């Protein structure tokens, strides 16, 4: 087949995925939003979904998604408000997005936090464009491009310079699926923290039935801003979850992220953590617990531009049944980024013979005075430890659970906000009873 025909074939396959974007054309929008949709659609039309031979996509098979029939809708379907899960913490304020659409009537932001729908923010917030029309080549990030083609839903969260928000802030993405006509969701979100401000976010993704959610999130931290962002990816068992986060950190800012992933049949969380100035701390850690035929992929790039940065990528996972986990982590240290301290660690515990864990750890270092370490390993439950616990009267199933919890405890210890750590611990215990 010649190159032209090949391109035609790609376009034939991608067009159905872009058709619904025409519905957005009739909506009023800022010029940059229209331009972004256009660029995204064009890029996606040419690339289509990633090919399994494409760099970064060797381990995650997309057939479960690409064989599906998903459609974007301007309106979220009707649902029972009482079905929304309770907030995770009693004292938090919460905002709700239903199928990616911000619902102010169900939402309440903490003092010091301004929340707007993406479309409102696109015309009202000055300078927002630079954080939402992001760096990077859409041609190499098909999911990001597809999301861009549907720029409409989502939310913008801003914290003014100097504001220290003490109340925990929950952002709930509640997704209502449908077996016959499964929705495709394309929210685009931004957390923008002004100079020397601070915020603690709990970001939850959950829902019912079949759906495909493809999120793009920007996180912009101005100098000395501090963000703690705790994610729970607990999508419904038949959902596909894709998220692409660009974290941009300025001088002396700090980021502490933790992602807890147990949901969805096919998921990928991709992060580009850009440490564009000096003195930055950037920690992204997480835990995944997979069973049945779930597949989950964490792909993380940490990019050090300037000196004295400290970064951590530390993930641990438990993989049961025929589930598969993927971790691709890269720390990139540019020539100017002297005194970088980078650390990457990934461990998976395989609970069944058919479970699989794939790792791709990478360091790419151009500076000469740095401290970087990486490690990846998979293993099984330690038989000796299991026997030791049983010999003390602890039944085998309980002993196994205890060992799995202990395995995950070392990464949970990275969560400095203890109420959320306790939530994670409870959820892990509940998962282990499955």
């Amino acid at each position, binding site marked *: 087949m010649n190159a032209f025909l090949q391109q035609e074939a790609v376009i034939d396959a991608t067009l159905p995925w872009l058709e619904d974007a025409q519905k957005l054309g009739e909506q009023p929008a800022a010029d940059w939003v229209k331009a972004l949709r256009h660029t995204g659609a064009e890029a996606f039309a040419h690339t289509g979904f990633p090919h399994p031979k494409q760099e970064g996509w060797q381990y995650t098979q997309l057939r479960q998604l690409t064989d599906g029939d998903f459609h974007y809708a301007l309106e979220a379907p009707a649902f029972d408000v009482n079905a929304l899960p309770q907030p995770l913490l009693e004292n938090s304020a919460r905002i709700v997005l239903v199928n990616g659409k911000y619902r102010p009537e169900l939402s309440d932001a903490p003092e010091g936090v301004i929340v707007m729908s993406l479309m409102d923010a696109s015309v009202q917030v000055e300078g927002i464009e630079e954080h939402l029309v992001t760096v990077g080549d859409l041609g190499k990030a098909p999911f990001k491009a597809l999301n861009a083609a549907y720029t409409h839903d989502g939310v913008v969260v801003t914290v003014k310079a100097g504001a220290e928000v003490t109340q925990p802030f929950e952002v709930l993405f509640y997704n209502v699926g449908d077996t016959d006509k499964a929705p495709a969701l394309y929210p685009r979100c931004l957390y923008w923290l002004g100079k020397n401000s601070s915020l603690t976010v709990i970001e939850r993704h959950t829902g019912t039935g079949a759906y495909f959610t493809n999120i793009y999130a920007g996180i912009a931290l101005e100098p000395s801003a501090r963000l703690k962002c705790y994610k729970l990816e607990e999508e419904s068992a038949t959902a596909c979850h894709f998220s692409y986060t660009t974290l941009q950190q300025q001088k002396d800012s700090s980021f502490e992220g933790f992602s807890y992933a147990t949901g969805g049949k096919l998921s990928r969380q991709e992060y580009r953590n850009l440490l564009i100035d000096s003195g930055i701390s950037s920690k992204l850690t997480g835990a995944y617990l997979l069973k049945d035929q779930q597949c989950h992929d964490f792909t993380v790039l940490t990019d050090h531009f300037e000196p004295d940065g400290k970064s951590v990528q530390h993930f641990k996972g438990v993989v049961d049944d025929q589930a598969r986990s993927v971790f691709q982590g890269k720390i990139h240290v540019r020539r100017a980024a002297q005194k970088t301290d980078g650390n990457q660690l990934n461990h998976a515990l395989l609970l069944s013979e058919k479970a699989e864990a794939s790792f791709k750890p990478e360091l790419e270092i151009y500076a000469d005075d740095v401290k970087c370490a990486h490690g990846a390993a998979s293993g099984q439950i*330690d*038989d*000796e*430890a299991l*026997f*030791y*616990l*049983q*010999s*003390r*009267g*602890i*039944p*085998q199933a*309980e*002993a196994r659970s*205890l*060992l799995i*919890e*202990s*395995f*995950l*405890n*070392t990464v949970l210890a990275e969560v400095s906000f203890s109420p959320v750590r306790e939530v994670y611990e409870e959820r892990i215990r509940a998962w282990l009873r499955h």
Partner: protein
Amino acid sequence: MTMLKIENLHAEVGGREVLKGINLTVKAGEVHAVMGPNGSGKSTLSYVLAGRPGYEVTKGKVTFLGQDLLALAPEGRAAAGMFLAFQYPVEIPGVSTTMFLKTALNAVRKARGEKEFSPVDFLKLQKEKMAQLGMDAEMLKRGVNVGFSGGEKKRNEALQMAMLAPKLAILDETDSGLDIDALKVVAEGVNALRSKDRAFLVITHYQRLLKHIKPDIVHVLADGKIRKTGGPELALELEDKGYAEYTGDAALRAGDKSI
């Protein structure tokens, strides 16, 4: 009352026969020492009794307090009142020692049909037993045996034993890795548990532990069989003469005849 009865016990590890017909009866209130050279099957005996996977019984019978011990899972054996103090206690990072003790104690109590401890009662008991063993409360927060010295590990074994209050305690080379002070403390812990309702099987290569834990009966184990049984004086004899008498070919043949 007969507590443990081992009859013609044969066991394999990795396809190799290690126990070749053990016969041993332990009554309540007694302390038995099993002594023997390296490779004689001492540790195998303790693991077989505790139910470690990979230690396969090919022949024979073990009765513990009237029950078929070999039919029980390791946790069932613990619930029935058996305790093995490990030669090499296992490190478990991420599980605190106190959490471990509480889980074990309550699991055993539940299996025995007893009420679980209230947190206050548990802490009281833990504190009391730790004080008896001269242990620092700080180690309760650490992962089980993680970063513990040899002495601390063995004290931790003694602590678990004191808290679980077993009917039969098997001490597998408890003296290995211990200096003399730690040895005394651990031995005192064991002696404090001696009672007419409880029995001990002390497995050791050297006689020095038996200076501190006085046995009633001493057995010599060599090449997978009990070669000789006697009183405490047998341990002293071994101290003088070593195991040469039991390890030569001639000795083994003679031993075969005597059984």
